[in-house]
């Protein structure tokens, strides 16, 4: 056998169930309870409204930079929908919808975005890591968290998110390799939104898909229409089940699109045109899902209008509360910046803290 086959690598397929028009492939349609469908829809719509509101707050100068999620709601909710509370969510920096699904409070998200350390306020019982700015570094944490879970014999799994750009970092590679070789219950959800700031996918990698990168680690790779909540849900279920039952990690590529700016510091007109974006407007994950739900008789325009109004009022109220908290924090002292560096204060910190307290008085007296 001079040139014999050693490993057949198979084929990357693209799963799509609910098409752009909202038409469903009956053969593939998953059997999701109606309440769950509605909950997912609610989360997606809320995510969209939250994002829009946040963008406004940023443009008004009330909060700092953040990464909008517009267009990526299905990828986040379809995947996170499978998590039990005792499972772990290890986000990157563009998963506000998933984080809210898991229980993150608008006030905390905004406080963080307004530059207050207090915004990183994860409840003691929540198994959510905070958002992670250094690209791809969180993927290794996900692997470590999963190792500990497995070590203790628990059947919780870890879901971690990352972008297409993140796949170029060494940490992505090391995280998938460790997870594969150590059989860790992790689901790597790639939101392939086609861009890493200004870099289109074709300049990020020569591989045609992200899913095929799984081959390097001997683990399954899946690719789905990331704007199709049903497809994401189905694929994520497969991945989550496999992680939970077989301790095999999966790389799940959700093909989606970043409809907004990269962050509010970014100006996409420098590197992409309306022609690039236009086709994706028709592929909006929420409107097609609504078409589906309407066809099922689960929602109508009136419900939708009502939901939007409820969200608007709630967000208004939440911002009110955030503002009050900000005022409260600004009126208080910022001594907290010295807290929690270590579990105990060492003398140099105590000394610097005392010095800082004196300086605060002096700087305030001075205006």
């Amino acid at each position, binding site marked *: 056998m001079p040139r014999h086959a050693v490993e057949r690598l198979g084929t990357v397929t693209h799963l799509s169930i609910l098409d752009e028009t909202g038409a469903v492939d009956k053969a593939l349609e998953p059997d999701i309870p109606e309440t769950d469908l509605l909950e997912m829809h609610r989360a997606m719509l809320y995510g969209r409204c939250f994002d829009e509101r946040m963008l406004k707050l940023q443009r008004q100068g009330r909060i*700092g*930079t953040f990464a909008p999620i517009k267009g990526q709601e299905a990828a986040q909710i379809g995947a996170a929908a499978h998590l039990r509370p005792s499972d772990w969510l290890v986000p990157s920096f563009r998963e506000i919808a998933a984080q809210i699904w898991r229980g993150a409070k608008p006030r905390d998200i905004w406080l*963080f975005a*307004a*530059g*207050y*350390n207090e*915004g990183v306020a994860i409840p003691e019982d929540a198994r959510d890591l905070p958002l992670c*700015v*250094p*690209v791809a570094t969180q993927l290794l944490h996900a692997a470590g968290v999963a190792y500990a879970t497995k070590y203790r014999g628990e059947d919780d799994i870890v879901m971690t998110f990352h972008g297409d*750009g*993140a796949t*170029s*970092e*060494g*940490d992505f590679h090391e995280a998938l390799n460790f997870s594969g070789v150590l059989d860790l219950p992790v689901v790597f959800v790639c939101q392939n939104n086609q861009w*890493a*700031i*200004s*870099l289109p996918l074709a*300049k*990020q*990698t020569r591989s045609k898909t992200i899913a095929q990168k799984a081959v390097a680690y001997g683990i399954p790779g899946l690719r789905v229409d990331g704007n199709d909540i049903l497809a994401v849900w189905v694929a994520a279920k497969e991945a989550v089940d496999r992680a939970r039952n077989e301790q095999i990690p999966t790389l799940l590529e959700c093909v989606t699109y970043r409809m907004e700016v990269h962050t509010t*510091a*970014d100006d996409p007109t*420098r*590197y992409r045109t309306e022609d690039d974006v236009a086709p994706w407007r028709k592929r909006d994950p929420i409107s097609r899902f609504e078409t589906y739900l309407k066809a099922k008789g689960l929602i109508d325009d009136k419900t939708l209008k009502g939901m939007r109004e409820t969200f608007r009022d709630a967000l208004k109220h939440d911002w009110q509360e955030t503002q009050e908290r*900000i005022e409260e*924090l*600004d009126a208080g002292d*910022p001594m907290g*910046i*010295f807290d929690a*560096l270590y579990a105990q204060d060492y003398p*140099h*910190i105590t000394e*610097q803290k005392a010095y*800082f307290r004196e*300086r*605060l008085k*002096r*700087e305030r007296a*001075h205006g």
Partner: protein
Amino acid sequence: MAELTMIQAVNLAMREALAEDDAVILLGQDVGVDGGIFRATQGLIEDFGAARVLDTPLAEAGIIGMAVGMALNGMKPVAEMQFSGFSYQAFHQIENHVARFRWRTNGRFSVPMVIRMPYGAGVRALEHHSESREAYWAHTPGLKLVIPSGPIKARALLAAAIRDPDPVIFYEPKALYRAFKEDVPDVAEPIKIGKADVVRVGKDLTLIAYGAMLPRAVDAATKLAGDGIEAEVIDLMTISPLDEETIIQSVKKTGRAVVVHEASRSFGVGAELCARINDKAFFHLEAPVKRVTGYDIHPPFFAREQHYLPSVLRIYDEARETLTI
């Protein structure tokens, strides 16, 4: 002569280098079509092409490791790290290779390259976008570390760095990118790497600063002048190798020194300045060298970052205190 911000001056230096020498290449994330997230490379891909203003995948070790290879093979890469906070992904390439190639090959190979990175607080940015860890690079033999404090110097120093036969870490105080403009000359007046600049002459004490703290030190000196105190202000410009001579000369004259930096204090650049002054001007010192620096914590999220940074008032107060000793 053109009125330029510091970021425009950085851009100008790169434009000139690209025009002058085909071996010069810029590389990094979003440096091409986007013109860099801070617009440092704006307009350059249009004029010099995508092969010389190279958009790379998202991988810092990749960028620096590639740049090492390019430099080994005759090019002069200018690599951009989007923020100093992400240069640590490339730390091994810098420590293991950038800093060592000439030395370990007895000069057979060298890696003339520049690593540009914005550092420091003050622009209301996200986590990991605000620290100053210049001491890491300063402590690494084989590297040079340069930090400009304004447009004219940024242009001249970056020009020198790109033409330097050795690797230079070019640490850009992002708070100054658009803070003020200066009349940048048509032809750069060269500034040598390894030299500090006495930006204000005085006899009562020496203020030593660099980067975004330099303007604050200058303001403090002005305030001191209002009290009749003549502070000498030194802009280090090159942190490593240090221009010991200029520093020692000044402190021998004034007998008092205050070092200002925004990096956290312990094991920071200020410590080395204390040590050098202690070593070479001990018997001229009338008071201990003071350090006015960031605290030994991480730069707070941006709502409180100004609390972390040495203020003009704090520099002034500490200088006054030094004078009472």
